Structures are given as structure tokens and as C-alpha cells.
């Protein structure tokens, strides 16, 4: 890790002052910060030594890393990634084996209490052998690295909420970072994968202010997860008008009508997809004709079929209804039969009323 600031690094690469300020302005707007904050961001980035980052990958598919590295140059996320000190990332780093682990240990020692820990993937808590790195179980490594971290960023839904590995019946006993680490500031950046720019903006914020941005109840940055997809969806007017695609190839689908009936989870999903979009702002799943899966929400994998509407129960009700109706009919016939018997008996036991027993004697 060098002592160069981000500003130095940028200038070395021939990026102008004007370009740098533009980057700061974009970061501020992404984080929903007032324009007055732009100089503060610029100052912080220019004068802060490159942030040491340790990246741990556990039970994951590398999709998050893929997403973050597939950015289009020269993007903000690219700028940030070029200018932090990524001291350990076993997928990206050149070093391997004990050299790699040594790099991690050195970074931890040198920047103790200051480095940023990024985690992707969930942590198995069943058999530790389910996932190990250099013979160290994921759980042990997480605890060891987390101890000296200034803050932790849980990247992707697996790290943030357990994700796919935690899906029922959760064979590895997968857990999220926040399930295991409770004494450090944790920021969740869920998504399967998360939007790259969200991540870099979070890092920029941390560098600028030395603390985490404002978070929601699931520790997600409000700036990106403050509103649900449904509220920001360009197809929302069709929902309001009652115009829906009923299949993926009907007229409604071709006309771009709302995908609610096809199981879109937009209403329950908090993410920036509908505004920030993907692939350099090209599109997002709903725009491409498929409903939102709700990938940035906890347990999205177990929240019922992706293709069943949100208002429909997650259980299969038909058998339940049939058996209940049969049981109801059986009990109803019994209770009704008892009623009929009670009535018949009452009629049988009728004591004829004569004029002699109209009064109490």
C-alpha cells in the first residue's frame, strides 16, 4: 500500500481537475447529498491516503465480483477501484497461496483498525469444511479479519442476508455477516448481484466522511435502497390503469405493460435498479421484460414462486382447501346430526301443555 492520495493517483493518470470534480459531483448526487458537499468530497478524496481494503469471498458465485469488474471505462466505479488499495482479493490478486495470505496478514497488521473489510458470500456455520481458504474456515477468517476492520461492507445478498446458500433447507447452515459480527459497523449492499455503482459510492462516502452513509432498517444505504422498484418503475402507470401482461408473449407483454401478474416483486423490493439501471444505464430486468425477483431482499429465494403474483399465498392451497372442506363436511354432518337428534328428542319429550299448567303452582 502506498501513501499516495487518490488525487495524486488520478493526476498521475492524466485526469484533469475538471474531470475529478465532475466525479465528485456525480458521487454526491448518487448519495443524495447536497451540492454544498461536493468540495468536501473533492477535498477528502484528494487528501486521503488510498484506503486499504481487504476483500473476503466465502460461499459465493463470484457474480458480485464479476458485476463490479464489468464496468465501462472510464466510470466512477472504475476510478474508485483503481484508486483504492485492494490489499487482498483472492479472485483478483496476482499472488496465490501463502503469498496471498501473507499480503492479507500484512495489510491487517499495518492498517489495524483502519482498513475496510468487504465480504461477499455467506458463511457456513455447519461443518466448517464446507468452505475454507488456505485451510482456514470462513467463519474463523471472518472473525479474524473483522476484528481489526474499521467497518465492514457486506456485498451481495449472500453476505448481507445469507442469500441463495441460506435458502431452505440451508444445508450448510449459511449465515450473513451481520448474523455473526455484531461489534462493527456493517453496511449491507445486497443484490444478486448488487449494482456496481452503489458499491463504489458507498466506499467514496466512507472515505469522505469516515463513517457509513445513512442506512435503512436492513442496514442498506438509504440513498440506493430508500425506494422500492415498483414506485420508480416506468411501467407503474400501466399498473394503475389495470393493464397487465398475462403471459410473457402476449400483447400486454409486447406493449410493455405491468408484470405484476407474472410475479414481479417490484412492490416489495428496495433497490435502485429502476433509476440507476444496469450495464451503464442501458436497462434493468423489468425493462427487459421480466419481473423483478426481489434479489436485494432477505429470503428472496424462499418468498414463493418468482412467477406467482405477490398477492398470492406462498403455499399450495388446493389440497388444504379440499381436505378442509372434507373435514368440515364430516364434522358439520356430525354436529348437524346431533342438532337434528337434539331437536327430535325435544319434540319427542314434549309435555303437552293444557290449561291446567299455564301457571306456576
Amino acid at each position, binding site marked *: 500500500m502506498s501513501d499516495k492520495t487518490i488525487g495524486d493517483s488520478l493526476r498521475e493518470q492524466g485526469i484533469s481537475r475538471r474531470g475529478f470534480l465532475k466525479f465528485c459531483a456525480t458521487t454526491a448526487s448518487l448519495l443524495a447529498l447536497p451540492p454544498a458537499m461536493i468540495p468536501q468530497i473533492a477535498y477528502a478524496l484528494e487528501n486521503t491516503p488510498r484506503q486499504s481494503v481487504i476483500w473476503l469471498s466465502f460461499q459465493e458465485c463470484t457474480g458480485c465480483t464479476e458485476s463490479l469488474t464489468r464496468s465501462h471505462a472510464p466510470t466512477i466505479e472504475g476510478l474508485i477501484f483503481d484508486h483504492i488499495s485492494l490489499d487482498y482479493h483472492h479472485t483478483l490478486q496476482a499472488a496465490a497461496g501463502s503469498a496471498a495470505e501473507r499480503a492479507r496478514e500484512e495489510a491487517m497488521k499495518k492498517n489495524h483498525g483502519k482498513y475496510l473489510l468487504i465480504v461477499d458470500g455467506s458463511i457456513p456455520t455447519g461443518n466448517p469444511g464446507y468452505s475454507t481458504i488456505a485451510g482456514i474456515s470462513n467463519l474463523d477468517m471472518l472473525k479474524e479479519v473483522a476484528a481489526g476492520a474499521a467497518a465492514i461492507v457486506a456485498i451481495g445478498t449472500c453476505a448481507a442476508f445469507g442469500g441463495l446458500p441460506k435458502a431452505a433447507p440451508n444445508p450448510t447452515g449459511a449465515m450473513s455477516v451481520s448474523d455473526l459480527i455484531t461489534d462493527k459497523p456493517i453496511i449491507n449492499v445486497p443484490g444478486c448481484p448488487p449494482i456496481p455503482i452503489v458499491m463504489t459510492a458507498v466506499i467514496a462516502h466512507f472515505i469522505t466522511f469516515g463513517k457509513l452513509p445513512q442506512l435503512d432498517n436492513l442496514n442498506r444505504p438509504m440513498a440506493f435502497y430508500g425506494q422500492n422498484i415498483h414506485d420508480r418503475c416506468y411501467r407503474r402507470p400501466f399498473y394503475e390503469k389495470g393493464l397487465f401482461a398475462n403471459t410473457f408473449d402476449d400483447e400486454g407483454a409486447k406493449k410493455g405493460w405491468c408484470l405484476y401478474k407474472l410475479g414481479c416483486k417490484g412492490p416489495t423490493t428496495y433497490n435502485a435498479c429502476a433509476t440507476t439501471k444496469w450495464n451503464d444505464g442501458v436497462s434493468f430486468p423489468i425493462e427487459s421484460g421480466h419481473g423483478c425477483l426481489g434479489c436485494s431482499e432477505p429470503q428472496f429465494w424462499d418468498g414463493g414462486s418468482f412467477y406467482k403474483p405477490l398477492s398470492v399465498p406462498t403455499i399450495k392451497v388446493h389440497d388444504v382447501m379440499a381436505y378442509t372442506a372434507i373435514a368440515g363436511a364430516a364434522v358439520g354432518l356430525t354436529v348437524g346430526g346431533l342438532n337434528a337428534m*337434539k331437536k327430535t328428542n325435544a319434540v319427542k319429550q314434549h*309435555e303437552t301443555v293444557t290449561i291446567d299448567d299455564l*301457571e306456576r303452582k
Partner: protein
Amino acid sequence: MSTATFERGYAAFKEQIDSPIAAFFNSCVHCGMCAEACLFYTETGDPKYTPIHKLEPLRKVWYQEYTLLGRLTSLLGLTERLTDADLAEWKHLIYDSCTLCGRCSVVCPVGNDLVYMIRKAREGMVAAGHSPEGQIGAAKRAVIIGSPMGVQFVTLQAQIKHAEKTTGLTIPIDQTGVEFLVVLSSMEIINYPEYLEAIAKIMHQADKTWTLCSSAFEATNTGIQIGSSDIARQLVNRIVEAAENLRVKTVISPECGHAYTVLRWEGPNLIGRPYRFKVRHIIEVLDEFRAGGKLKTEGFEEARLTFHDPCQLVRRGGVIEQPRKLLGMVARNFVEMEDAGKMNWCCGGGGGVSAIDEAEELRTKVFNRKKIQLEKLKVDTLVTACANCRIILEEGLEAYEMDLPVVGLTEMIAEHLVEDK
């Protein structure tokens, strides 16, 4: 010696509950609309007269005996049991303040037939010994003497003689094989003997065979008013036996609302089989005569008059158009009362209320509704087709110091008959 007990009452409630009652109690949403349909609420403003509230004892028995949750909760002792004190308290509501008029049954938005339930609730009240003294006395007289007012056949014989003298016609008694058996209400025998004369004249003109019966001349049935099917059966059987022994085709119910209900609708169910004869109200018979050209009248009443619909005739009996057609024959200046026909307001004395002394003050109070209706019309004569209504109307008019003659429709028709056809 047998006696009324709470247990007998409870058993009777249990016996009376059927699927319709269960459907009615299940459906009530406590909307209060039945109160607004009830004379006793509208004229007193006291919510305790809300019809569905009058059925609280019956509801308790239904809930505890015939519902799943009620059975379970009463096993655990969580339900409020019906008590003898409840029944004593409800006597005023089930008897004094319900004339079985059935307005509530027509208004209820979920379709509850509240009168059907009150009628059945009275079965429990009788068996428990909580029926009103006045009605007990009337029932005893009806069973022992033959008439609730204590009228014996000898009294009727005197009236027959008088009628024969006035009309110059023979009034047949105990004749077999005739078309009509005419039965009377004791009010007609004592208060309105003109009715018998009218029948004689009308039958003569229509050229119909008919008879009275010495063993079954009384049509009123206190059993139905007090709410005892056993006593009602005993009384109605007299007429059934007479009609079947005399082999008449049709029994004519007199101008008496509840007598019609008993004979026409409840009778076959009391004896548990269909009749071998028909039952028609005198007004229905007159209208059939009219339609068949057998009723010839002359002259018109010039007085401004209106018709009071007896509840048991219209709402509970389906005789709605007939009296109007008959009035059309003899009245030029007929005006309809507000809410006439199916939605008429009760005189306040039906359903046996007129026999309850304790109810008299309340009955007079609720007559206010009729008073207002009549005042609006400014009529000279009030016509009706029920002797009980007629008495109550006369009493009510007197209490409110209104001078208005009340006439029976049959008599009015008889007065206009063409003499010597």
C-alpha cells in the same frame, strides 16, 4: 299435578328452534332497522322494544344448544345461561309489546322473519308459566266454555233468532253437505251481531248453501295468541272435526285476523295433516262472489272513508287487493291510508295484546301512530275487516277523543245488497 316450570319452558324453546330460526339468528347484524318498523319503538322511543331484542331468550337457547361455539363455551361455563328471571323480564317484551304484526319481518334487510320467532318464543314462555294472566284466563274460557269471552251456544242462539227476525231469512245450523261452514268470533256475537245478518243476506243473494255449527261456532283461538300449539290444536280441532263431519267444501273465517291465520295457515300444521276442506276469509269469499257476478250492490257510500288493513290479513295473510275491489263497489270517496296494504301499521291490539290488562296503557300510547294517520286523511268513516282491530280502533279513537265511526266491510257490503234479485 302438572305445572309450568322453567325447565319445561327451556325444553319448549329447544323444541321450537329449527333451521329458519338458526338462519335468522346467524344473519342478524344488529342494524336496528326492525326497531324503526315496530310500533312499540316508534311511538315510545324506547330501544328495549327493538324486535330482535325481544328474542334474546330464544337466541340464548339457540346459541347454547345448537351452535358449535355455543356448545363449547357453555361446557366451559363461559356463556350466560338463560334464567327464569330473564323470562320474567321478557314477558313484557314478548307479550305486551308485540302484536305479531310482522312489519319487522318485512323490513329486515337480511330477511329475518321475526314474528315467526316471537310466535315460537311464546311456546317457551307458556310452558315456563310466564304468559300473561289475561290470556291465561281467555285460554281457559276458550277450552272450558268454548269461547275466550265466555260465549256459549245459547247466547249465539239468541243472536240467531234476532237475526232471523230482522232479515226474514233462516239461519241454518248443523246442516251437512252444504258449501260453506261459517264460523264467528265471539266479538261478532257480542259486539257486532250485524255481521251474522250480513252473512245471511249475502248467502241468500248469492244463492249459496251454508251453515253454522253448534259445536264449532267460535273461530278465535287463544292458543295461538298465548303461544301454545297444544291448546291451539285442541281449539282448531273443533272446527276441523265439524267441517269434516258436516262435509263442507269451505270454512269461512270471520272478520278476525288471527282466526284467519290459525284456520288458514297454522291449522293444518297443528293437526299434522292437510285439511279435507278449504279455508277462506269472508273478504276472499265476497270477492269471489263479486268476480262471479253473485254479489249485486246498489248505491254508494258518500262519506269519505278509508280502510284499516288487519295485519294478519295483509302482511301475514296475502289478502290485500280483495277489500279494495269490494270497497270499489260501494264507496265513491275512498282514500288509502299512508303505508296501506302490506306495510300497514297495526292497531296495537293484535296478537293477543288486547287481552292483556297490563298492556292497555302501552297499547293506547302506541295507537298514536293510527291517530296521526287518520288525522292526515280527515275521513268520516273507518272501514276494517277484523273485529279485534275494530274494537281496538274504537277504544283508541275514544281515548284520543276522536269521533269516527268504525265499520266492518262485510256489513257495509250487505247494506248495499240489491234486495229481491
